[in-house]
């Protein structure tokens, strides 16, 4: 069963003269791309237009579209913050052709009926393909395993209690063992709650100065150590979500060296920001886990470059305006990210020379696709058209009124970004056209 659902298309398009860049397929050159009925039909220096729509790719980069393994679509329950339609439109605008939605909704995606309902809606509404992750425990309460077998049969893309940890080591161990009957990834939100309770920001000098409760790096790495040990013992794969701490990265690398099947993702905000930014007390800088001191950021960038962290995930977490228009201390955790991820990372990592463009493209597409067992978006003849056109020279200001997302709680509001998504083709159709 395919875990992804969404609109598909059979568009006819020719893109002329773009720099076609698919690092995994080994393509890098000024080429024309012809898409016949949603499938890449030709890839060479000059193709016939066949009366297709022609897009001038001069000066643009054409790359595999992105895959985001960590998105909160807030549906069901908080459709005022995001819907399947708005969240996937935001994804398309950000260059994504596939996303995974987290199950911490109201109700929680913990039974097959809720999951089937979401998948049926997504088939009609989703601008790009969506996979729905299901909960590990009923209600994400950490007490009883969900019916993972039935959920997998109904199309669960992964299992996670994201938003909170599986507090009990015994329960986590059982989940790892039982999940052997499905072929779906188990993804964990690593947090030792007794160390993070009352925490708002990274426990460090900035928290001490601002008088805000600290969420220490150890609050994550202690849980990472536990879950890696459990995965090693159970001989099962494990995926670590939104890593934020240097110590977590070191534990991941040690486990990988010991042949534990462990993977990880990192968010644009943890790669671009440090806790210094929090001094403004802008509630759009509050997220869980929090952004940390520069040594942590540097460790995350290095691990992303080396591939030990193989995926970039936005952890796109929409919040209603009134929820964030409160004092920093009262604000909920979470920031949006789908529409700014590439721009933020290009501006803050590629331009300053911290990460090659090819690596960024791989970690936003092939990397997460491989971890979650999804088909890799690729620029090859015969592949479905899942690609993005990017203008790397364009400079723009992030504005609240320009988002496709229903929410605008972005940490980038008012800031300038270099590079802009011009067009996204997802599942053979033009899903976004600037």
């Amino acid at each position, binding site marked *: 069963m395919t875990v992804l659902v969404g609109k598909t298309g059979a568009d006819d398009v020719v893109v002329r003269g773009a720099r076609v860049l698919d690092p995994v397929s080994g393509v890098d050159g000024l080429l024309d791309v012809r898409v016949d009925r949603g499938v890449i039909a030709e890839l060479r220096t000059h193709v016939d237009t066949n009366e297709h729509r022609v897009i001038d790719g001069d000066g643009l980069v054409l790359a595999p579209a992105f895959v985001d393994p960590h998105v909160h679509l807030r549906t069901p329950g908080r459709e005022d913050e995001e819907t399947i339609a708005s969240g996937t439109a935001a994804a398309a605008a950000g260059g994504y052709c596939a996303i995974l939605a987290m199950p911490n909704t109201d109700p929680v995606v913990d039974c097959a009926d809720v999951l089937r309902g979401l998948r049926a809606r997504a088939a009609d509404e989703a601008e790009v393909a969506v996979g729905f992750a299901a909960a590990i425990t009923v209600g994400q309460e950490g007490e009883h395993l969900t019916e993972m077998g039935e959920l997998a049969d109904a199309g669960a893309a992964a299992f996670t209690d994201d938003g909170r940890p599986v507090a009990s080591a015994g329960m986590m161990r059982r989940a790892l063992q039982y999940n052997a009957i499905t072929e779906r990834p188990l993804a964990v939100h690593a947090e030792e709650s007794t160390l993070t309770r009352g925490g708002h920001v990274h426990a460090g*000098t900035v928290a001490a100065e601002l008088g*805000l409760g600290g969420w220490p790096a150890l609050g994550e790495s202690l849980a990472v150590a536990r879950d890696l040990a459990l995965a090693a013992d159970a001989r099962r794969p494990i995926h670590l979500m939104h890593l934020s701490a240097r110590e977590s990265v070191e534990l991941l690398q040690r486990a990988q060296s010991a042949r534990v099947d462990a993977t990880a993702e990192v968010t644009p905000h943890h790669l671009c920001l440090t806790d210094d930014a929090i001094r403004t007390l802008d509630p759009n800088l509050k997220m869980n886990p929090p952004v940390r001191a520069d040594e942590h950021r540097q460790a995350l960038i290095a691990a992303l470059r080396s591939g030990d962290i193989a995926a970039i995930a936005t952890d796109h977490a929409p919040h209603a305006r009134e929820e964030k228009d*409160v*004092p920093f201390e009262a604000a909920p955790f979470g920031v949006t990210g789908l529409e700014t991820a590439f721009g933020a990372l290009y501006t803050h990592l590629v331009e300053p020379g911290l990460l090659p463009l090819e690596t960024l493209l791989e970690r936003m597409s092939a990397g997460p696709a491989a971890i979650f067992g999804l088909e890799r978006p690729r620029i090859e003849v015969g592949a479905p058209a899942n690609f993005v056109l990017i203008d790397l020279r364009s400079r723009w200001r992030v504005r609240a009124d320009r988002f496709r997302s229903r929410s605008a709680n972005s940490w980038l509001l008012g800031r300038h970004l270099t590079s802009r998504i011009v067009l996204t083709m997802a599942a053979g159709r033009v899903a976004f056209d600037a």
Partner: protein
Amino acid sequence: MNELHVIPGELRPPRPRERRHLLSVADLSRDDVERLLSSARSFARSQERDTKKLPTLRGRLVVNLFYESSTRTSSSFEIAAKRLSADVLNVKAVGSSADKGESLKDTALTLSAYGPDVIVVRHPQVGAPHLVARVSDSHVVNAGDGKHQHPTQALLDLYTMSEELGRLEGLHVAIVGDVLHSRVARSLVQALRLVGASVVLVGPPTLVPAGLADASHDIESVGAADVVYVLRMQRERMDEDGHVPSLREYSARWGITPERVRPGQRVMHPGPMNRGVEIDGRVADAGCSLVVDQVRSGLVVRMAVLYDLLTAGPVAVEAAVAVA
């Protein structure tokens, strides 16, 4: 006080005009502090006269928006505004629309509709005055936000030290007690550093966070200080969080008793005091205690802050006082 804006321009929507706020000591320069203390001295002289009211801020409106209980701070802001002839509106969370669940943003917008010149905000959550500053067109003064900042307290403490000891540069101050939960300590550490004084934080390891200033867990380290600044132990926090095993053990180890005060040292406390817990009653009432001076300083320093925000800045305060 051109440095007073806290939120860098990029992160907030454009505003038609520049407004100055007092949100954090971190936004003040040494010149700002010296100017404010100098204004406070002039206002102190004006308060020695029979007629204490000055016409300086006649026709201006000051709103005191208090979401936490307060005696000293709210009364001194009120008197300060009245002594400068401003109109004053006191709004307390209890008995206001906040009781009915109105958000801070909406309360701030509502009060802003009256066109107040200054909104003084006290709130239990970090960042509350910053939110008010974002949504209203008034000058905002932070009168305490959570465990973050209480800048007028730090200024009145500097004023008290400077009046009593004749200088600030080179002073050595020991801040004793629950630094972790104290906005007073956070503001004062920054303020003392700004004027060239040195600080040591003294208290239990669980209540003295790393990274703020030199720290010691040994009460003996107050011996070298010119000023022993005693923080309030918040009893309610001890029960909830268990940062120290008991108040009894705290008092025995870190309580300021007459035996622990060296002749010549001054003792300060922001109030309200827990006599017998962090400070021995005999110390609180002794000649070395500046607790009442601090309250008196609070009035003139808050007059100086209101005056400074509502006038263009370093205008000679003598002129304003002379009008009276």
